[in-house]
């Protein structure tokens, strides 16, 4: 289970396909609204100056997520 690749493992410029969400309820709904759905392509497009949070391009929008939250999104 814990060997699954998470969103956080993407390097800047890399993309992946979303497999699922492993986080608490409020966060999960937030992710769903933002479009982090199974099968969507998501790309890491940048890091903040201190490395965390990072910016991800999902469905045409750029969303910043912290490491802890990005680790809750698993990739195929």
């Amino acid at each position: 289970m814990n060997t699954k690749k998470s969103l956080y493992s993407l390097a800047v410029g890399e993309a992946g396909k979303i497999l699922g969400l492993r986080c608490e309820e409020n966060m999960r709904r937030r992710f769903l609204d933002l479009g982090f759905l199974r099968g969507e392509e998501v790309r890491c497009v940048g890091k903040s100056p201190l490395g965390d949070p990072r910016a991800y391009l999902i469905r045409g929008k750029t969303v910043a997520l912290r490491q802890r939250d990005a680790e809750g999104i698993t990739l195929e």
Partner: protein
Amino acid sequence: MARGGKHGGRVTKSEVNLTLAGNPNVGKSTLFNTLTGMRVHTGNWAGKTVDTATATVKVGDVCYHITDIPGTYSLFYHSEEERVARDCIAFGKGDITVVVCDATSLCQGLNLALQVMECGGRTAVALNLVDEAKKRGISVDAIALSRELGVAVFPTVAHKRNTITPLLAALEGLKPSERVLYYPDAIESAVDKVYRALLPYGVEVARRRYFALRLIDGGEDMREKIFSALGVTGEGACQIISAVDAAWQGLFAAGIDREEYERLIATALVQRADEIAEHTVKICEGGRDVTGRLDKILTGRVSAYPVMLLLLALTLFITLSLANYPSAWLASLFAWLEGASRTALVGIGSPDWLVGILIDGVLNTLGEVVAVMLPPMAIFFPLFSLLEDSGYLPRIAYNLDRPFACAGACGKQALTMCMGLGCNAVGIVGCRIIDSERERRLAILTNSLMPCNGRLPMLITLIGAFYTLSGVGGGTPLVALGLSLFIVLSVCLTFLITLLLSRTLLRGAPSSFTLELPPYRKPRVLSTVYRALTQKCASVLLRAVAVAAPFGALLWCLSSITVGGKGIISYAASALDPIGSIFGMDGAILFAFTLGIPANEIVIPILLLIYGAGGTDTAGALLSCGWTPVTALCTAIFALLHWPCSTSLITVYKETHSIRDTALAFLIPTVTGLLLCLLVNAAAVLFF
């Protein structure tokens, strides 16, 4: 077609409640302003409405009560904003909801539009920013969109009234939205079970379906809301609850648990929105490039912080160097006005006390406040709005999130601090953009550490006085540098105190953080400057004037009513002298800050009045009152860090409903300021 009966035909009511909904940052508030004739203060800084604003507009013989609700992505209730929005649309008395969508990124807007339509009211879509979309090579077919959604769609450019007229004209004929969203069979049959249980209660078809959906996935509070909206009690409630249980039985049997249910609903919404967008939007690629390249500099590892500091210093420098001239003009204008009206009043034989109250009290204080405060504000607010309009502000939160997370807080606190630079009360309300309750309180309690626009001019005066007294000389660049240092100090203190609070009174781990980084756009200079001046400046200035005028009169009375040859005010000041001297100040200064609680802008005028000094050269006047460089420095520190103004304190109470938090908001900056003053004074006594 509409089956709701009473909504079948044209609206004949003369009063209609209209709600404006939309994603954050799609120009919803601008549309609201244009609709209402720009008469309404939209209330805050980040370009975000965090509270509802209302106004009434008459079109023909119909009176529209328009409510502008917070910008949200969904109605699923993660944050305070979404709760307010959902309550307004699904449970409010709104007749019509206009969903404002951003034509440059339609999917996200359509997702919300579909959710709003699902709530069952009459809905229209304002396809906003069509001009911006065209510039980026995006075209949206409004007619096709209207056909796909089954509601009226109007292309708009929010700040151009003529583009909104068709929307206004069509409002009267709007019909309830039709159902355009279907969920997987298992969910539909579960909804049907609950829907049937709701049949005895009088409500439109679509809204009944919405209630059924939310009874299944909503929590306890959602159920309460729906029951009270439908007037469900006792026996009826039991029947509905057992229908919900039965629905879940069916869902579980189909292998759908709560998490899967939410996922399926969200997926259906997003996919439908995508499908519609695919049929209606044509995109020529390109446009993200500029944002990507700018972000390399503005959020880059090496350049981000220097650029941020540079922008802050530059903003302050422009503000200071440009403000000097209008300040001097205003000061001489008021001096002339004082002279002229004094002659006139004395000429018609007014008694001395009346001349005193009106001229030396009201007009003098008013002049001080307006001349000192208006010019920097009139430059600072528009500059800041331009930064806001360009899309840079969220990058500040992005850059600073890491340090805030280390202090147990949220990066969005940086945005509320920026708002605090304009007005702390606004910054405190703005803290609602922070989702976590604990982190929101951290931001509220520390907001007053940022010097607001009422204190910036005071700081400038005091820093100038410090330079003059210590013989360094002055000059705008030096003052701007000093002011930047003071702001850096308050940022450092904010971090420190946030850290201390999250280790003690507001213990907890940082929660999650999602922040959208919109593409940069060229600020619309003229309309932004106009808006900043007419709304933000005007309201802050009016508040200051409203406080300054009566206070001026009161002060004059206090200083002129004499007992034993001295004014009452001087007794109070000398009584405070021993306390003041511990902190490197004097009694008059402490007393001026105490009287200045209604508005920080009046502290310096009060001080001059107590000293009995006056004239246009404030620093010179202070020099003649026995001030030393230490006095100026300590007073400047205390100006940065003392009790928040009464408006801020009331706002803290309104936002937290807690006396304890209000007291903390009072004590935190006060104690910090006094401690720093004590240290500086002690150091000065020891080493000089």
